[in-house]
């Protein structure tokens, strides 16, 4: 066994341990004072001379998830056994972690904020906030009276396209707004608020005359959007991308992906407030934009890599694609079946469906149909707006 040599000019175990925590932090494992303290206490409980024991103990203390646990051994060796790899892989892992942490933090923030906003909207007398909801939608609809009915293929001038993009983005944002305002009336809640009832009944000699109910605010559905940017979808890609941008920027929990022959996650790129940088990031990600499509394979990858974290019973998976697939149709069916089993609702928006006389005969599309909760057209902005009532209904 190699003798543990302590790097730098650390004075005592406490300082060395603090140095190790700094090393972990630099490599994307968020270890702090609390961990240092625990680690020092742990050293007293195990044989501090046995490097295997110490490693095992520190791993239990410092690692926070499976990924960090996997990387821990290497980081441990690099620091305590002085292999000089102090910054190994720092930039990549660190930034990846930061992005995750940031996303998670923002999500909590976002949901909290929307809750408050929603509370303010909820009328106390228990009538539902339906009136307000309908109002917003109308407003948007009337503002965009001409462009919304035009088939997106016919938008030729850059001005039209830009306008369509704006509208698509606004529609997407309004979807989020309306969802978060959905509240059940407390006067018709599901559960009796026994605590309150009893308190009030004391004055009435134990007769529960006034009834109070408890209700849980509906949590918004979590949207995951997958956009097909293959050759056959090119004419729609710009507007749909704007739609995705609207969805993503309205809600931190929304996830967006592009796929053609590969699948790329674009949520972070779309959230980038700097437009030019966002465009750059996107164009780098979308190498192969406008080529062939592999829907089945991409859905499979989505299932394997992302679905476990991001798809649950409250998720709505929106697929924007024309269904032309170079993979065998069974693959799409199989992938959708798996996705469905996670409890998610699946929406397929197909621009071709708006065409007159369209039948879903593309083999991939036909195979997917049995697994869809909602299959709708998407060749005009109206169609995108029509998604909202459906989302509110679920």
């Amino acid at each position, binding site marked *: 066994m190699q003798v543990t040599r302590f790097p730098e000019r650390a004075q005592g175990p406490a300082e060395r341990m603090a140095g190790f925590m700094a090393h972990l932090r630099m490599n994307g494992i968020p270890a702090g004072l609390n961990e240092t303290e625990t680690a020092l206490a742990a050293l007293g409980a*195990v044989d501090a001379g046995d490097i295997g024991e110490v490693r*095992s*103990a520190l791993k*239990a*203390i410092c690692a926070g998830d499976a990924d960090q646990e996997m990387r821990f051994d290497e980081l441990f060796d690099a620091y305590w056994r002085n292999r000089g790899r102090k910054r190994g892989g720092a930039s990549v892992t660190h930034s990846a972690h930061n992005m995750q942490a940031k996303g*998670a933090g923002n999500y909590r923030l976002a949901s909290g904020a929307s809750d408050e906003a929603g509370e303010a909207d909820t009328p106390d007398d228990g009538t539902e906030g339906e009136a307000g909801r309908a109002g917003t939608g109308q407003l948007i609809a009337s503002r965009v009276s001409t462009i919304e009915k035009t088939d997106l293929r016919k938008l030729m001038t850059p001005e039209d396209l830009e306008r369509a993009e704006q509208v698509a983005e606004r529609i997407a944002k309004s979807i989020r707004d309306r969802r978060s305002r959905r509240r059940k009336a407390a006067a018709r809640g599901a559960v009796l608020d026994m605590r309150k009832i009893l308190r009030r*009944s004391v004055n009435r000699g134990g007769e529960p005359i006034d009834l109070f109910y408890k209700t849980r605010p509906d949590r918004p559905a979590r949207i995951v959007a997958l956009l097909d940017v293959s050759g056959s979808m090119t004419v729609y890609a710009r507007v749909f991308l704007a739609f995705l941008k609207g969805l993503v920027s309205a809600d931190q929990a929304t996830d967006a992906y592009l796929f053609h022959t590969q699948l790329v996650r674009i949520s972070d790129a779309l959230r980038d407030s700097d437009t030019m940088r966002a465009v750059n990031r996107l164009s780098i990600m979308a190498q192969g934009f406008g080529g062939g499509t592999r829907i089945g394979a991409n859905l499979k990858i989505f299932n394997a890599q992302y679905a476990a974290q991001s798809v649950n019973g409250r998720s709505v998976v929106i697929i924007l694609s024309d269904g032309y697939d170079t993979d065998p149709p069974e693959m799409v069916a199989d992938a959708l079946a798996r996705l469905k089993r996670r409890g998610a609702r699946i929406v397929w928006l197909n621009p071709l469906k708006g065409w007159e006389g369209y039948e879903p005969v593309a083999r991939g599309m036909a195979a997917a149909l049995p697994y869809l909760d909602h299959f709708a057209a998407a060749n005009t902005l109206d169609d995108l707006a029509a998604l909202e009532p459906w989302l509110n209904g679920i």
Partner: protein
Amino acid sequence: MTWQSLQADLSSAGYVASDDLAMALFLAVTLGKPLLLEGPAGVGKTQIAKTLAELQGAKLIRLQCYEGLDASHAIYEWNYQRQLLSIRAAAEDHKPSDEIEDHIFSEKFLLQRPLLEAIRQEKPAVLLIDEIDRADEEFEAYLLEVLSDFQITIPEIGTIEAKTRPHVILTANGARDLSDALRRRCLYNFVDYPDRRTEMAILARRCPDIEARLAEQIVGFVQALRREELEKKPGIAEMLDWAAALAGLGVNDLADDPVQTQATLVCLLKTERDRAAVPKEVQQRLAGKAA
């Protein structure tokens, strides 16, 4: 107690723990920290809490999480029926309402739920918070508070301090991401499917009657099966069920008895699709590999 002795104790109680898991559990017990265990279903995350309780002679208090779990199911609830009766009785005696209120919101009318029960034990209990990732984020936040202070505040009574600190074990299998705050508060171990050697040890410990050769085949087969693309990979419990089934049927060699083997696969493959994905040929190939 050292971590090796804990590992040995676990083993004699029928739980074969990896070094890392034994160390994590040892530290959790020694340092009084909660332990978060993550991993696929059926690798013995829940079992370790049961075994620990058994070893310590402690009470196992289990809180099964689910979506919508709230304080009244996890911490405490007032006993409304008794309160109502008591109000009626008191009203007949014409007691002032202040007095009645003080009376009905006293500990006598409190129903303890797992979290409160756990900190009120005379002897440290083992508190198993199962599938924490199924509970809502709000509950997670509340749990953090309980886990850091080990005290529970009830508005009507005041703060209830812990009599003893329970050993807390949380399990999760990735239904959703847990908050960083919770992860940081806990010791962590990822419990994966056991390797071949460990699984052999588990099988030998739990079903000592099985012949060495059959045991090797069983473990080999299950290990190979986990590498197949299945919806639900068989866990340790499934492996043990299967071993018991084969032993019960008197199968001595998987390769000799493909019909029985095929028939007993119900113990391992729990969905229709997985059954279809492992037809006879695959099964024979796996069995061949295992033999």
